[in-house]
Structures are given as C-alpha cells and as structure tokens.
C-alpha cells in the first residue's frame, strides 16, 4: 500500500502542477488544494503506515503496550492541514477581490502593478 500511495501522491502532484500552470487563477487555486493534500499524504506515508493501531496509551499504562502508528507525522500533518486551509482561504479571497477590482481571472491580464511596456 505504501508504494501505491507514493504513486498516487505523484498523480496528485502532477495534476496540481498542471492546474497551477493555467492562465485562470481559479485553476491555480484548485492546484493549491490538491498540492496541500499531496504534501500531507507524503509526510504521512514517509512515517510508514500502520493499520488499526492509533497512537494512544491504554488506561493504567505509561506507554503504548504494542506497536502503534507513528505519532510524529500525524502531529505535523494536523498542523499542515490547518495552515494549508488558512493559505487557501486567503488565496481565495485574494482571487475574489482581484476579480472584483480587475474584472478578470486571467493571470496575464492582471497587470495593474506592471503595465505592459512597448515592444513586449
């Protein structure tokens, strides 16, 4: 399963790169969502997969009694999900506001700060 998820992460990354290269910034946003999912999975899988053994300590014990899932990548991914969401929400508002002001979603037409020069 780890190997298959590795391949799947590659597919997610490929799809998100393709989306991020698009002219339309909305597609860029979709790419952003996909690539954060891909990154989270990547971190999760590199900590190895353990089925049906959440990292919990049973009542009365000082430490897990048997092998449990790797807790460290889980903690990191949890943080990353939330941060990724913050980034996404901000980017979405930026796109929304950009469209309100500039009237376009095409990145090459958003040239308020750098107007086209002659000869370009």
């Amino acid at each position, binding site marked *: 399963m780890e190997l298959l998820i590795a391949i799947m992460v590659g597919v997610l990354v490929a*799809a998100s790169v393709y989306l991020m290269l698009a002219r339309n910034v*909305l597609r860029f946003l979709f790419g952003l969502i996909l690539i954060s999912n891909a990154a989270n999975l990547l971190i999760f899988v590199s900590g190895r997969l353990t089925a049906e053994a959440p990292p919990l300590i049973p009542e009365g014990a000082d430490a897990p009694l048997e092998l449990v899932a790797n807790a460290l990548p889980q903690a990191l991914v949890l943080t990353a999900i939330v941060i990724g969401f913050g980034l996404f929400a901000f980017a979405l508002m930026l796109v929304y506001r950009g469209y309100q002001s500039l009237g376009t979603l095409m990145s090459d037409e958003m040239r308020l700060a750098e107007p086209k020069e002659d000869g370009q």
Partner: protein
Amino acid sequence: MAGGPAGWISVLIPAALFAYFLGFVPAVSDGDVILLATEWVPSLDIRLSVMIDGLSLTFALLITGIGTLVTLYSTKYLGSHPEYPRFVLYLMAFMVGMLGLTLSDNLLALFVFWEVTTISSYLLIGFNSDSAKSRRSALQALLVTGTGGLALLAGMILLGNVAGSFELSVILQQGDMIRAHPLYVPIVILFLAGAFTKSAQFPFHFWLPNAMAAPTPVSAYLHSATMVKAGIYLMARMNPGLGGTDLWFWTLVIAGGFTTVFASVLALRQTDIKQVLAYTTLMALGALTLFIGAGTSDAIKAAMLFLVVHSLYKAALFLMIGVVDHATGTREVGVLRGLARKMPLTFVAAALAAISMAGIPPFIGFIGKEFLYKAGLGLEQGSLWVTGTIFAASALMFVAAGIVALRPFLGKLADTPKPAHEGPMVMVIGPLILAVLGLFFGLFPDTIEAWLVAPGTWAVYGSPDVSVDLYLFREVNAAFILSMVTFATGVVIYVFHRSLRDALGRLFAANPIKFDPGWDRVLDGLKALAGWQTRILQSGVLQRYLFVVFATLAIGIGGTIWTKDALNFRLDLAAELDGLLFKHWAVLVFIIAGALLTAYTRSRMTAIAALGVVGIGVALIFIMFSAPDVAITQLLVETLVVVLVAVAMLKLPHLDPVGTKDRRPWHAVLAVAVGVCVTAVLVAVLQGDIDRRLTDYFEVTSWPEAYGRNIVNVILVDFRALDTFGEIAVVVIAALSAYALLRGTHYKGRKPDTAEDET
C-alpha cells in the same frame, strides 16, 4: 581651532595613534614581529589578529602621521563647509580601514578593511555631491576598485584553502608549497587584479586622475600617500608567499614599468598642477610595483625607501597646491607666476618637496633615486628595462618638479582670480613639516634606515638577513653617473617642456584609444545587458515564472536522482498488491480519478465535486491507517473548502471564456515529470530505514511527563505548543486579511472600472 569639535577631535585621534605607533619603533627595528589576536567570527575562522612588523609599522606611521597633518590642514581648508563633520567622519572611517588593512594578520579581516577604504574613498571623492563630475569619478573609482576587491576575495579564499589558514603569519611561511601548487597561477592573477585596480596600474590607471575631483586634503591623503598604496602594500606583503617566480616577476615588472613611463609622459601633458601631481603619483605607484616585482634584496630596499620618500614629498606638494588654490583661486600653470614673494612659506615648502621629488642631493629623494638605480643595474634579468624606465621616469619627474614648484613661484607676479596671499598657518605647517622631513632624512639617512626601511625590507623580503645601509654619497659609481645624466636630461626637457606639452596634446588628441570614454561605453553596455536580461527573465507573466520554478524543480530532483543513481533497488509490486483489500483499491481509484478530473474538467461544479472526492479520499486513508484525529480535521477542513469555493463561485465567471479551451500539452509533460520526481523521492524514502527516535521519545514521555494518553494531542499542545501557537496565529492573520479584503469590496456600482481608471 576652525571646524569646532569635529576639527580638534579629528586631529587628536591620528596624532595620538601616531604617538602610540612610534612606541613600537624600537622593538620592530630590532627585528621583532608583534602578533596580537582576538576571535572575531570563530565559526568562519576570522580572527581580529594584528601583525606589527616593519612593513605594517611603516604604513601605520605614514597613515597616522600624514593623517594628523592632513586633518589639521582640513580644519582650515574645509572647516567652514556646512558638511565638514560628515567629511571628518568619512576621513576617520577611511583611516580606520587603512590601519586595519595594513595591521591585520588575517586575510579575511584584511579584505573587510580593504573594502572599508574603497567605500570611504567613494564617499570622499563624491564629497562635492552636487557636482556630476564628482559623482561620476566616485562611482568609477568604486566600481574599478570594487571589482578588483571581489577578485581579491576569490584569490584570498583560494589561498586560504591552499595554505590551510587565513593567518598571514602562517601563510607566508609556506611560500615554497604555495608556489608549487596548481592553484598558484589563479591565486596570483586574482591577487594582482585586486592590487592593480587599487594602485591604479595600467590598464586600470584611469580612475586615479579622475579621483582628483575630491577635495585637496583627500587627494593628498588617500590618492597619494595612503590608499592607492594599499595595492602596493598587498604586493609587498604577499611577496614572501607569492613572489619569486617568473610569472610574478614579469607581470609586475612589465605592468609597473609601463605605468611608470606612461604616467610620467602624461604628467607633462597636464596644465592643472593637481593633475600633474596625480600623474606623477601614478608614476610612483608604477615604480613601486616594478621594484617589488624585481624582488632582489636591493630592489625591495629601494622600494621601501621610495615608498616613504614619495609619501613625504607628494603629500607636501598636494597640500601646497591646495594652499595655492585656496589663496589664488586657480591651479593652472599658465596663470600662476611669481607667487614666491606673496607666499614665501608655501614657496619654501614647495621648493623643498620638489627638490626631493627631483632627486637632488642632499634630500632623501636623491638617496631614493640612487637606490632605485643601484637595484635596477644589479638585476640579473630585465636590468635594462627596469633601469631604462626608471631613468625616463626620473628625468620626467625632474621636469614635473620644475613645473610644480618653479614656474608658479618665480618670475613676475601674474593676475589670478583672487589676489595672492600667504595661506593660514595651519595649512602651511603640514607641507612644511613634510618637506623639511625630506631634508632631515636626506642629511641623516641612518635614522629612517633603522626605524623604517630596514625592518620593512626584512618583512617584504621574508628574511632579516638583508643589511640595509643608506648613504647620501660614497663613491662615483654607475648609479651616481646615471643620476647626473638624469639631471642633464631633465634640464633639457624642462627648457622645452611647453612646446613638448603642445606636441603631446596633439599626439594624444590623435590617439583613438581613450580609456575614459571607453569606461562610459563599458557601463552603457552593462546597462544594456542588464536590461536585455531582465526583459528575458522578468516577463511579468505568472505562468512563465511558475513554469521556470517547476522546471527547475523537475530538473534538479530528476537530475540528482539520475546522476546519483538513487533508484537502484528492485520494487516488489507483486508483494505490494498482495493483501490489498477492496477498500484500499476504492480509495486509491477515487482519489486518482478526482485529481485527474479536476485537472481536466471545464466545469466549475465538476471541479468542486472532484476536489471534494479527493479530500474525503485522503481523510479515508487517514482513518484506515490509524490517524483518527487527522482524519477528523481533514473532513472538517475539506467541507469548509468546498463550501467556500462554492460560495465564491456564485460571484466568479466560468473557468474558460466562451469559445476557448484549456489544453496545454507542454504543461502536461512538465506536470508528469514533477509528479514522477515526487514519487521517486518518496519511494526512495520508503526504501530506507525509518528513524523512530523522536516517536519513541514521545511515546514514553507522553503520559509520565504530560499526563496525556493521546500522543498526537500531547505533541500538539505540549511538546510542540509553540508551533501550534504559531499555527493559530497564521490562521488568525489569514482570517483578518481575508476580512480586510472582503471589506474593501464594499463600493458597489464602480467595481471593475477602478482598474481601468488606474491603467
């Protein structure tokens, strides 16, 4: 004293330092080398270490001694200038830099001080910042010496690696090893690039005459007595480590000799006395390079003597012309006549300094010239070239001395822009002291020999076995006869120098190779290149930037995997597929299908739905592999994302404008390449052993130390609490910013036209 506190402080500091350094003279003249060190940047092996030997002490005394006279002179020359304190600040910064440069034992520290002198020189040349000529000259000096400085830094790093230390006292012990090393040639070239630009050797000479746009005290101090000699110092300092090879010998001898003759001919061409002095300074720098390159003990001795001699008389003459300029309002040789009666003290200073410069006995200049001849005649190779250039230069110096000190002062008094009058005492005292010292050392050469020249020679030659014995006259020998011939030639040229100047002017006007306009063309070319490169790289189109970023990523990762052969293990797909349940298959298929559909679709609603599928699929993976907390968060966030996107869609247009499609084959190729690279890296990671030390630590400490049974939660709120706090801060800031953005849209009715108004 004029100039207020800035004035007397600026005089007091160099004077106190001069007295301090004088205290080292007895020890150093006994042949001692004083080493002091403190750690500065230990991690980079940079130590603030000081080495005081004959060479650095000679420089330190020149810097502080002439510095005292120059600052004293400046109190009157610039004391009433509104920016005088700023001037003093720059001058003091320069002095610190110059002292550090000559005293530092660490190559990297030396480089830092080297750059301090470059920058303070830039500020001082451009002191009259409202003049375009000053600004151009300042920039030119900065760029030429700064470029050389970068070359020098590269050379220093190479040398430090070769020698295994950045301490000069260590490096200079290893001369034989360095000279035999394959990197010796690049090291020498880089060091000489630094030294030649700083000391204005041909073909980098053109900045120095332009630098005379600086106020006269600066010209006297930086561009004659001290800073331009930093390159000379460097060559002298490195001589025991780098010198003694054919490469060193011929480069220095040819460049130095050419600069010497070239500059002394150009000196005759000038009509501005300050420019005459500028070119004779170039000549002196050339001669010093020439003799350090020649490298015999006699040559080094001659160079060390000439270094001191030149600093004395040239600083005196520069300060003198400043007094004349101040008093009469002009520096043109054609205008100034008969000032001797109006300015007797200035005349005395000028005459004494000029006699030393002309090399007439009993002044120290005579001894200096005599030793140059003696060293030149004694060379085994290149004797004719060295002696010939020095002969030509000395004869022309004789003429230049006449132009500078005879013509303006003798004859009938001529009209000047301001009526001539004697300069104020604080301005005349400096040149007088320097000029009288030239006479004193000439009459008592033993003093300067024991104090400065002998220890300096030992340091540069790399051994204290050289006997230095200066004398005014001992016997009629070849050098003495050559001196007499020099005087005769000098007198003849002086008589004809005015017609010679006109002829030279015509000759140079016809010469198509001009360095100064050439410099402008180089700068224009550089600007054009920068503009062209910026237009290529900075297209202003987001898609192209991202393409470059991702392509770099793919090539970087893919190339590394390829060249390091990182994937040389066998993948056991059969074992992988074995034991795979339906739920696993289903999740994988859902996620991949969702991702591809998002990339492919032209419909916004399909894209949102497909994104939702991917997000929930990822949450399912978290659930299956024992991460319930992560799965809950993922589900929550995923729901919010879909809701937010869906709401935004209500106000946003379709993905593709009517009649267009989004098909980008090249982007697809790149996207697949990046995806393959990421998979390859992840597979490689999974092949290796996992390091569970941190996890183990959290597992055994979670309950005993933090009283939590959910290890993930304990990590988040306890072990990595600060991290979580940062995360919360990020979310709050994102929310606030999003709110601000949304608030900004509340001007109904005039939304899209704001953009058009501004463009």
